[in-house]
């Protein structure tokens, strides 16, 4: 049911939009209205670590008022991220990523695509483990194929600063438009 951008990498110099795929019509011929969460992860005081928060702020300006989308922020992956997804049919997580790609590269991933996620910390488990735990506890959570991670390659995640590095800052509007494309592919913006 999801448009598959998984694994798609958009380098810093590439055109900014991804061709949206419309949501598969339901049996009645109408796009399925999914309760959707977009969540930016990061620390607002650490240079490129804040990029996920900045992307969702930018996204809020792009989203039509009637969009069936909740946009929020958090600072933590794993269990906490899973708990934020409870009650939703679909989730898009926006966060900084460190893979060695050029700073500002945007990558779309699924919850299982990263064997190594920040979400596993001293106080947490991986997102797949957290999702499995939540489902075992009976929580209503998006299925794995309705969870997408939008990663923006960071350059500096160790310095306290309220500004991103230039390449990462330049990726913010592109990433926000990409999230819009992902949302449109599911008809979430349809009134």
């Amino acid at each position, binding site marked *: 049911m999801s448009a598959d951008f998984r694994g798609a990498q958009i380098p810093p110099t590439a055109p900014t939009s991804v061709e949206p795929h419309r949501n598969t019509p339901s049996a009645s011929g109408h796009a399925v209205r999914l309760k959707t969460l977009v969540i930016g992860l990061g620390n607002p005081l650490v240079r*490129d*670590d804040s990029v996920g928060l900045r992307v969702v702020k930018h996204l809020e300006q792009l989203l039509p008022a009637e969009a069936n989308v909740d946009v929020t922020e958090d*600072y933590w992956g794993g269990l906490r991220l899973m708990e934020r997804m409870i009650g939703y049919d679909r989730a898009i997580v926006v966060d900084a990523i460190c893979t060695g790609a050029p700073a500002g590269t945007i990558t779309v991933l699924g919850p299982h695509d990263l064997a190594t996620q*920040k979400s596993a*910390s001293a*106080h947490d488990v991986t997102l797949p483990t957290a999702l499995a*735990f939540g489902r075992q506890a009976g929580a209503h959570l998006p299925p794995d194929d309705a969870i997408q991670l939008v990663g923006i390659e960071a350059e500096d995640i160790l310095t*306290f600063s309220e500004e991103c590095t230039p390449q990462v800052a330049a990726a913010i509007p592109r990433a926000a438009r990409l999230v819009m494309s992902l949302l449109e592919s599911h008809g979430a913006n349809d009134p």
Partner: protein
Amino acid sequence: MKRVSIDPITRLEGHGKIDIFLNDDGDVANAYLQIPELRGFEKFCQGRLAEDMPNLTARICGVCPEAHHMAATKALDNVFHVDPPPTAKKLRELFYNIFFATDHTTHFYALGGPDFVVGPQAPKAERNILGVIAKVGMDIAGKVLKMRRDGHHLIKMMGGRAVHPNWGLPGGVSRGITEEQRQEIEKLGRDAIEFAKFSVQLFHDLVLGNTEYVNLIKSDAFTHQTYNMGTVDENNHVNFYDGKIRVVGPDGKEKFKYDSQDYRQFVAERVEPWSYLKFPYLKQVGWKGFVDGIDSGVYKATPLSRLNAADGMATPLAQAEYERFYATLGGKPVNPTLATHWARLIELTYAAENWVRLATDPEITGSEYRRLPTETPTEGVGCVEAPRGTLTHHYATDERGILTRVNLIVGTTNNNAPICMSVKKAAQGLIKKGQVSDGLLNMVEMAFRAYDPCFGCATHSLPGQMPLEIRLRNAQGDLVGRLSQHLT
């Protein structure tokens, strides 16, 4: 000298690695944690308004923003020379105990507990919260989720925000609670007590009922004779929010008891050229290196240390378990690091009981929850017990309240030296003459996980869960071997 690197450590907030140095015989000479530093926080704060610190410092750490928020708020009381009214102090302590109960729940069930509940010999892939569910039953998933949900709900209700609290002010808090809110807090607190009782019973059934596990806890490989630090109330009972800092020796005797404003007279911070992190030690005992004993200034500040540094718990169920703890493990002090997991459950019980005690205090719904500061701001220290150890914030300002100097000693930093010592000891048992035994990764992991460590805790970028990797280096520093495993 050979060098073994474990890089980076899984389940740590932030990225770190362990270097193990071998001598010419191939035996372990030393082991150190190496942590990338988050640069410039103190400088970042300078020039800002002091009253912004509870909100700024809450963002230092993704694991315990509430602890930083509270330490900063208490520091502001002292910077602005204002004593909060009783209702404000009780509201803060209530909030803080709710946070503590939630945090300890997560550590026990998701992180440290699986080593025991599922078993230290169980396959790595099963030693996680899903393994706990498989062993204990499906009901546990709902219980843990409810405990976390209730805690986060109340923290948001009192603190004003789900993500970071926006509540603490010099002289008090920004809002109180209504009677309706109080009733909800009390009800969920009673549920938390039941959850704590369930958790303690689980530990008794699955861990203490297993001689092998008890022997592992008591084993010398995980034992250190260091000083213990913790905050105590006027009866020398454990307190997370306020009190005097008490330090007891490896012999169990009180060495120091001091006001947190005087911490600099008692704690010094050693800098090592190979580490970004400082190594706090007891100034008046002195730094003798990474060694145990009464002459070494190394101290621990953990749930286990807090129990050792106190004479008891202030609530009945926690006190009863405290007595069982020492009776089972051979009296005070208890030095095996792995006993920290049990100590954490005793603290969970205390936090839940204290939550209800405060929620039923007649003053908790009072309308006087802030006293306005009127004096010129200067300098002050704020101290709380974070789940991982004593947390100290120290600020100095100019006469306008603009920050000129900031110093923080965070919970885990207290334990930097003991963690290195624990890793070294675990490695010594498993690396002989250059040969690395199976299980090194697991044993080293168990050694540091008991501390619930949290380093460089501000970043949140993916990827985060790294493979645990050991690199073996010979005396010349050349790579001679590599071990790694991905952890869930």
